């Protein structure tokens, strides 16, 4: 006896521990997923970090620096001085490497420019000529066996033969890198042979027929737009360059020039004076440039210090002596007082520097740029996210930098001081584009007329500005969940009430498992049925579908009233399966009716064509407003009527035994009352729609708008089908668990079954029903395949039911396979996962809390 008791105790304890451990493991697993997601997403919000820093003297005299270049691997740094001297150093150590000086025949470089991709540059000379040039870093990987003899060591990775560098790369191989400066023949640009004072250039064309465009301004203020076509002579292998030149309209005399800027497709030339005046030339027709706009980009009295485009030529970075730093876009504006209807607008404002920004270098990769203050402080900033990626200050005070240079892969910054010292920082900024603001707030993207929430993660070119706003995706998720719940909740809950309170238990034992089986319907099947079958049907029969929303409920209510007219004896006999069949038949008949009446309805309400009505090209707004207000006014009138009726007492039915006539009369009265209410509602909503219509209100353009085949309506249907069984099953269980004695109490008070269901059963089970809805919502929010397949995946923020959407889950499913591991998109998708997880977590937690409360209350009963 004692022994048995002990074994029971042990079993009890083991079970207890197993359950506890199991529960803790589940919690740990959920937390671990959360921690993992956070850990994956967190680096997005971090700035960069420095990996190494060096400073060394460049034996560069006091000549200004005309150009600088660096290879992708940060091996070489090449500095071209205005007198033609070339200083090549090993960037990491500052070891001087030999390189041939360029021969400028005694001419000085007076201005220079580099294309935004850094493939070539233009050098302007004191005699009014221009030479196109390029600094290349030819590289080849060789096996270590082919390493020449007599190399000496630069650092633990690199060896040199004095002019080129051998860098060890994985796999016992070496990368051989050298420098090569190629100068093309001088092109006479200034007719009068005056020095070129400002220059900007861009590369274009294809590989076979390269074009390089450049704007040059000579000291007379003569500005020219030049396009150089290089043509390869296949016989000799030489390239010949021909230049087409167009003069730009003269800028006013007395303007002290600061810089010129040219957009990539040569569509626009900006000439900026020192005082902040900017002359914008529209050069889209290169033969007939026009001065389109004269504007100021700085307040009065502030001088220009920084002026140049970011990669892509859309964001114009402007810095002034007041320490300000702004980005301007050229945008279409109705208010623009310019010849082409566009104007330069300040769109982004950066944190002011302690002193004015004086040096600027855009990254050839993405929208980052480096900027140097007059005080010597340096920053690397991302133009879109406005995130300060890096900031540096040299140990030794620097008066001023001659020039700064961002490494091609945005992983290094070199600054040459006026004292001849070069400072070189290596750093790593894995995710320059992301800040909290860029992900969750409105951002004014290049080319957009105003700040927007936009998701556009991948692009064809480097120049493309990535748009990583999660807001449209969150919006899409909520929109899909909202519309599917709008469809699912009434059906699921009414269905649950019907089966738990009205249906014969034999019927119930069939319906319930059938619905439970629907829960396990693969959502991918629902998704493709929705996309391939439902979407075209809904599109073709859209008017009928809208009509069905009105016809089916009306038909059901009417049938219910007519049912009361049946003789009781027959009604009692038909209770059960025949009644259920009648309900189904009513739905089918109403659907068929809607289908047949669809075209008539379309003619009557939408001027014959729903889609062109949606576009606003025909029809008036009133009919739709009428439909919209019909249910609202019906409910309002119904409530009003019952309130009016309820205030009188004494009309208790004294009828003890209903004779046939005694039963039919009240039913007839009911039907008449219902018809009167319906008419009243129609009249009321007609009045409202006329009033709103005359006020100029129109649902088109907001609630409904252009029709897309894979739209939210279809998603609502398909996801509704996924969600209905979930809500139905849980809600039905909740309703069913309401103790029988409460139903008995209610019925004994003379309540009908419907009154019992609505006034007693539903309120008692409300928390269970609520948690059913929440779990359904959780499912709708997390649902992936249906939205991937049937939502169209357009990341737009539009409440229009007839437009598509893009949900968080769908985005993750679609884009994760293409995202580079640990890249920005990859981590953003994890962040999207975290957001989704948090949404479902919150929803499920609320559901669970409500459920716990519900259990407590159920225990009291």
């Amino acid at each position: 006896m004692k022994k048995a008791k002990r074994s029971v105790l042990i079993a009890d304890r083991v079970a207890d521990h197993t359950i506890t451990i199991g529960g803790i493991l589940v919690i740990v697993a959920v937390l671990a997923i959360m921690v993992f997601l956070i850990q994956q997403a967190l680096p997005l919000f971090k700035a960069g970090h420095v990996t190494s820093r060096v400073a060394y003297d460049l034996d560069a005299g006091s000549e200004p620096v005309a150009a600088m270049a660096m290879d992708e691997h940060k091996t070489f740094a090449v500095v071209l001085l205005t007198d033609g001297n070339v200083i090549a150093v090993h960037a990491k150590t500052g070891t001087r490497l030999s390189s041939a000086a360029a021969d400028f025949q005694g001419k000085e470089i007076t201005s220079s420019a580099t294309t935004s991709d850094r493939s070539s540059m233009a050098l302007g000379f004191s005699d009014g000529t221009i030479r196109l040039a390029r600094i290349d870093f030819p590289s080849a990987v060789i096996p270590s066996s082919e390493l020449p003899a007599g190399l000496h060591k630069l650092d633990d990775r690199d060896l040199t033969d004095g002019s080129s560098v051998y860098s060890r790369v994985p796999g016992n191989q070496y990368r051989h890198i050298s420098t090569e400066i190629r100068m093309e023949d001088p092109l006479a640009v200034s007719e009068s042979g005056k020095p070129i004072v400002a220059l900007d250039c861009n590369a274009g064309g294809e590989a076979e027929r390269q074009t390089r465009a450049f704007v040059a301004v000579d000291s007379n203020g003569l500005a020219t737009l030049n396009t150089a076509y290089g043509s390869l002579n296949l016989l000799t292998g030489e390239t010949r360059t021909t230049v087409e030149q167009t003069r730009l309209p003269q800028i006013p005399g007395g303007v002290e020039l600061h810089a010129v800027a040219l957009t990539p497709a040569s569509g626009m030339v900006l000439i900026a004076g020192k005082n902040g005046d900017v002359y914008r030339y529209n050069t889209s027709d290169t033969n007939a440039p026009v001065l389109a706009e004269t504007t100021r980009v700085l307040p009065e009295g502030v001088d220009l210090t920084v002026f140049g485009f970011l990669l892509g030529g859309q964001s114009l970075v402007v810095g002034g002596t007041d320490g300000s730093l702004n980005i301007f876009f050229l945008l279409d504006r109705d208010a623009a007082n310019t010849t082409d209807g566009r104007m330069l607008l300040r769109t982004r404002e950066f944190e002011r520097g302690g002193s004015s920004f004086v040096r600027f270098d855009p990254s050839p990769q993405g929208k980052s740029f480096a900027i140097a203050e007059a005080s010597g402080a340096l920053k690397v900033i991302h133009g879109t996210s406005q995130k300060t990626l890096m900031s540096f200050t040299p140990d030794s005070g620097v008066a001023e930098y001659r020039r700064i240079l961002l490494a091609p892969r945005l992983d290094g910054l070199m600054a040459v001081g006026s004292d001849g010292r070069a400072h070189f920082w290596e750093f790593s900024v894995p995710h320059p584009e992301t800040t909290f603001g860029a992900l969750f707030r409105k951002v004014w993207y290049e080319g957009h007329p105003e700040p927007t929430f936009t998701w556009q993660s991948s692009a064809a070119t480097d120049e493309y500005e990535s748009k990583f706003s999660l807001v449209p995706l969150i919006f899409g998720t909520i929109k899909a969940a909202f519309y599917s719940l709008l469809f699912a909740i009434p059906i699921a809950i009414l269905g649950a009430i019907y089966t738990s309170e009205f249906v014969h238990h034999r019927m119930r034992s069939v319906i319930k498992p059938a619905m439970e089986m629907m829960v396990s319907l693969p959502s991918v099947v629902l998704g493709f049925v929705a996309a391939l079958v439902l979407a075209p049907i809904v599109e073709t029969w859209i008017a009928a579908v809208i009509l069905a929303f009105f016809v089916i409920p009306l038909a059901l209510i009417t049938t219910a009233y007519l049912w009361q007219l049946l003789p009781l004896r027959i009604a009692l006999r038909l209770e059960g399966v025949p009644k259920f069949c009648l309900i189904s038949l009513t739905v089918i008949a109403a659907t068929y009716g809607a289908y047949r009446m669809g075209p008539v309805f379309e003619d009557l309400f939408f001027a014959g064509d729903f889609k062109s009505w949606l576009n606003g090209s025909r029809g008036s707004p009133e009919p739709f407003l009428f439909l919209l207000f019909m249910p609202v006014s019906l409910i309002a009138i119904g409530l009003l009527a019952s309130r009016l009726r309820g205030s009188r007492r004494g009309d208790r039915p004294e009828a003890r035994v209903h004779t046939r006539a005694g039963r039919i009369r009240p039913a007839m009265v009911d039907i008449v009352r219902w018809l009167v209410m319906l008419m009243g509602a129609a009249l009321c909503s007609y009045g409202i729609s006329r009033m709103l219509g005359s006020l100029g209100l129109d649902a088109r353009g907001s609630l409904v708008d252009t029709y897309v085949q894979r739209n939210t309506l279809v998603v609502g249907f398909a996801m509704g089908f996924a969600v209905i069984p979930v809500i139905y099953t849980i809600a039905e269980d909740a309703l069913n668990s309401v103790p029988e004695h409460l139903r008995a109490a209610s019925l004994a008070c003379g309540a009908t079954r419907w009154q019992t269901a609505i006034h007693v059963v539903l309120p008692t089970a409300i928390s269970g029903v609520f948690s059913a809805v929440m779990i359904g919502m959780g499912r709708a929010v997390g649902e992936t395949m249906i939205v991937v397949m049937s939502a169209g995946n357009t990341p737009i923020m539009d409440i229009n039911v007839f437009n598509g959407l893009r949900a968080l889950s769908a985005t993750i499913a679609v884009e994760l396979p293409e995202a580079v591991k640990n890249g920005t998109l990859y981590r953003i998708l994890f962040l999207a996962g975290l957001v989704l997880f948090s949404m479902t977590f919150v929803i499920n937690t609320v559901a669970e809390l409500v459920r716990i409360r519900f259990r407590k209350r159920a225990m009291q009963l």
Partner: protein
Amino acid sequence: MVDSRVTYTESLETINYPKHGGRGVVIEIKDFSLWYGHQQALFNNTLSIERGLVTALIGPSGCGKSTLIRSLNRMNDLIDGLRTQGQIHFSDENIYNPNVDVIGLRKRMGMVFQKPNPFPMTISENVTYPLKVDGIRDRRLLDETAEKALRAAALWDEVKERLHANALGLSGGQQQRLCIARAIAGDPEVLLMDEPCSALDPLATAKIEDLIYQLRGQYTIIIVTHNMQQAARVSDNTAFMYLGKLIEYGDTRTIFTNPKHGRTQDYVTGRFG
């Protein structure tokens, strides 16, 4: 055995209330039989309930008391496979006529169950439920009725401060009186009580019994009880049932002091049951 008999007689003496005397028959059960599926639960019962009096139904467990009382307001309708034979007349209408308005019938017969079953709502919502079901929303009328019913159920003083508190917060006895108040609020003619005190302690039971005295005359009350003393104390007439059959029906004093049938005698003296 003799002792207990003395007790009943004593208790009858102590009550000493004036006998109302029947004001006519309100419910007439005529040759009524009932089957749960194939199992017959009631056998050809015939019984008339007098208006304004308290009628007790007694009998051993499973003899069909609940079945009979639930037949009176057709609460048995909810049970699957139920079949009846015979008639029950209420105000001269056969309530088993298929055309009868069951909802209306139930409104005229309040019912109190064995286990207190207040709705998980506020006290006032509970009491006014029958009115709500009638579609009455006039606040003043609802409040008046609630107060009247709660006073009638001797609960007013205990709950008037917390009419809007959840009814489930009341004690078992209070809950049962609330259920009585709810039954009264619907302004019924008959009150059906199926072992209303079986879940209550003696004090609460005494309160309910007091209440029954007070309601007596105003309503026709039919009460099922296992407590002989209670039956003896509160009822005017007593019906003794055994195995689905009405064995003896008559004046309470007669049933307890001078029953005709041996079974009745055995039962009321506690020899079986």
